[in-house]
């Protein structure tokens, strides 16, 4: 402890460390029966950090290219010491991160934590979720295996259905007319440079907003506390909440380790652009609800192409979703129940369509 005290004194002399962390010492977190939902954002952040660290380690051996990507991942999985663990943790962590990001978003929605003054936190969060899905889409292609190749082909084809800008977007994403090595290097660039850069800035903004505005209290708890101020409970952020968050991170780490050790991420077979697409090919689970919806839309709805209608529809829904806080009342006694209804419907739709898409042939 003497060393830590000396270090603290040394830092205080130079950067006024105590003053710097004073806001953290004063920061409190509301304590109520729904407090555990607050951990989801932190777990998502933890998984993002895991992604960054394992991603950097994978970069030491991964070589993007039509003739080297698959081989390098195979090398990582079989020859590099603990390479299998790093790659499996990276893949599992990516999927868990998308899951916790979705869960975090719905928890914020149902706890109405997006209300004024937290609209921008919601907007930055939804954009982050889209970015995370972009990470998933771009990263999925990098091992250059059969499933990834055809999933990218189908995915970019759907992008091509966007009116007016669809075709240029398809060419931009693929680096040409077809999914080739050019697409792979492009996706690699997005995955390791462009998306991490934007995501890091947005995460910083998101966290800054959370720190600045404090933690939201659900409207019913807020009303109850207003009616009975003595019932109000809060816990110190540092160290109490942070230590609990740390416990959640450890649990997440244990789950990740178990998944990686018991179910190492499959590599599949190397992509062959000249082979036919495997029968019943499906995208990753987080795109499945959209994919299944597009499959169910008839080829022509009146005079409009069904797929175009679906893509435009999803775009509009995403825009409205982004703007959801602006339809909400800041008064806890006048919150819009229909927004909760939309949230329940969206959750049921995503879950239902994902299960349907998984079971459908």
């Amino acid at each position: 402890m003497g060393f830590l005290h000396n270090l603290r004194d040394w830092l205080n002399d130079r950067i006024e460390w105590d003053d710097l962390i004073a806001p953290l010492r004063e920061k409190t977190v509301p304590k109520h029966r729904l407090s555990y939902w607050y951990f989801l954002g932190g777990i998502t952040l933890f998984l993002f950090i895991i992604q960054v660290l394992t991603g950097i380690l994978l970069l030491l051996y991964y070589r993007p290219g039509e003739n080297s990507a698959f081989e390098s991942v195979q090398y990582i999985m079989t020859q590099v010491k603990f390479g299998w663990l790093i790659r499996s943790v990276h893949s599992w962590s990516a999927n868990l991160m998308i899951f916790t990001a979705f869960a975090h978003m719905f928890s914020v929605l149902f706890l109405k934590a997006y209300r004024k003054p937290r609209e921008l936190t919601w907007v930055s969060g939804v954009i982050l979720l889209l970015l995370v899905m972009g990470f998933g889409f771009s990263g999925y292609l990098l091992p250059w295996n059969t499933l990834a190749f055809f999933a990218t082909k189908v995915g970019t084809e759907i992008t091509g259905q966007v009116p007016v800008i669809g075709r240029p977007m398809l060419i931009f994403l693929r680096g040409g007319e077809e999914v080739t090595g050019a697409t792979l290097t492009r996706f690699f660039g997005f995955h390791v440079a462009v998306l991490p850069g934007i995501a890091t800035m947005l995460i910083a903004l998101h966290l800054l907003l959370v720190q600045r505005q404090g933690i939201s209290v659900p409207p019913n708890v807020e009303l109850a506390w207003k009616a009975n101020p003595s019932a109000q409970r809060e816990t110190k952020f540092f160290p109490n909440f942070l230590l609990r968050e740390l416990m959640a991170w450890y649990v997440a780490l244990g789950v990740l380790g178990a998944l990686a050790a018991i179910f190492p991420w499959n590599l599949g077979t190397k992509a062959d652009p000249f082979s036919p697409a495997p029968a019943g090919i499906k995208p990753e689970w987080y795109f499945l609800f959209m994919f299944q919806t597009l499959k169910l839309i008839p080829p022509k709805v009146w005079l409009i192409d069904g797929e175009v209608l679906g893509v435009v529809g999803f775009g509009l829904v995403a825009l409205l979703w982004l703007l959801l806080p602006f339809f909400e009342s800041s008064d806890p006694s006048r919150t819009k129940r229909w927004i909760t209804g939309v949230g329940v419907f969206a959750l049921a739709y995503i879950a239902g369509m994902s299960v349907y898409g998984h079971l459908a042939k």
Partner: protein
Amino acid sequence: MAIWRNRKNIVISRGFIPEKSAFPLAQRTADSSSLALLGMTRMRSSGLRRSLCPALIFLLCSLAGGQTKNSCLDCHSALPDPLGVTQDQFSQDIHAQKGLTCASCHGGDPTSDDPDKAMSRKAGWKGKIDRKQIPELCGSCHSDPGFMRQYNPSLRTDQLSQYKTSVHGKRLAAGDTKVAVCTDCHSVHDLRAPSDPRSTVNPVNVATTCAHCHADAAYMSGYKIPTNQFAEYSKSVHHDALVVRGDLSAPTCTTCHGNHGAAPPGVDKVQNVCSNCHVFQAQMYEKSSHKKAFDAASLPGCVVCHGNHGISHPTDAKLGTGPDAVCMRCHAPGDACDRARAGLLSDLTRLDGAIQSADQVLAVAASSGMEVSEARLGQDQARDWLTKARVTIHSFRKELVDQDIQAGLKIAAKNQQAGKQAMAERNYRRIGLAIALIAIGLVLLGLRLYIKQIES
């Protein structure tokens, strides 16, 4: 009506003009450019200057004249079989597609609506072609390389001469009209290119076409040859490959027996036929002791062990002593050859077992999520050696077979080892996971106690 006759009295026009030779070589309704080309080819043989004028007149007339009438189909499309030929049927015919008309083979004047004129002997009408004349009629074009080149330069033109050497051709020449002529196999009036899956001579359909006669016991009764070939072939590994799996390189009747030059192969030719595809087996057999013994006993090589039309998928059981065994049909139990047979079978069984064992270990490792794709790919090499050993069996020399077996065993053992290592690695990971989870659990417990302490 455009008419032009060259020196050889060969009609090349949109209509029909009778000629003195037995069969008109060609009449075409192709476009004018093709006609000009054809005209030029013929003109070289007849003299450019003399032909230039009629050719130009013909070209101009044909351009002005448009599509020529074919009155034959007006009636024959409404007639019942065997005189009926529908427009739809005839339009599928490759000859019609290339511009030939009814008159090209049957003669007559298709431009006339009057049946008496259209089918008058004066107009060269020949009516139904006599079966004996059919090969010559087809050969009048198909044996002319210069003429056929303009349609298909790669098409052979020796069908007629080949046919004449076949049993079918010889019997026809001797007056037996029951034997197959061109139209029996290739069909008539709706004749398609062999590459067309609907063609009667497409590889997939050849056996059925031959079976029309050869599986008809009543029809074949006078020839004293079996009629079960098709039934046998339908159960064979070759039929399975060709028809079920769609492998067009698999053999059908004509692959072994020839087509236009069809002739049953003699006893000494069987291995020559099989060796067209099974090259290495034949090479091994040629150097084997069995070759000499079979030759001495006038036994027909490959078919002694494998059969002919009903060749089944060969298994190692052929070397055994069970119902599928073939060695013991000639060899006595306990003799030197029987011991060699047992040794060969044991070799094959050993390698097969080693491959299966490695497959199992690798499958378990793969299903546990272990990356063993390289070893699994390597299994194909071991299987290749097993296949090679099965080919080398035809040498009946144990030392040669052993070389393949040992090479295969070495690879299978290496792959099995890779599978075992993967399983060991899987267990190592699980132990590591257990230790890590215990460590995480302890940290969680410590954190929980610490939180409790600072909050109390």
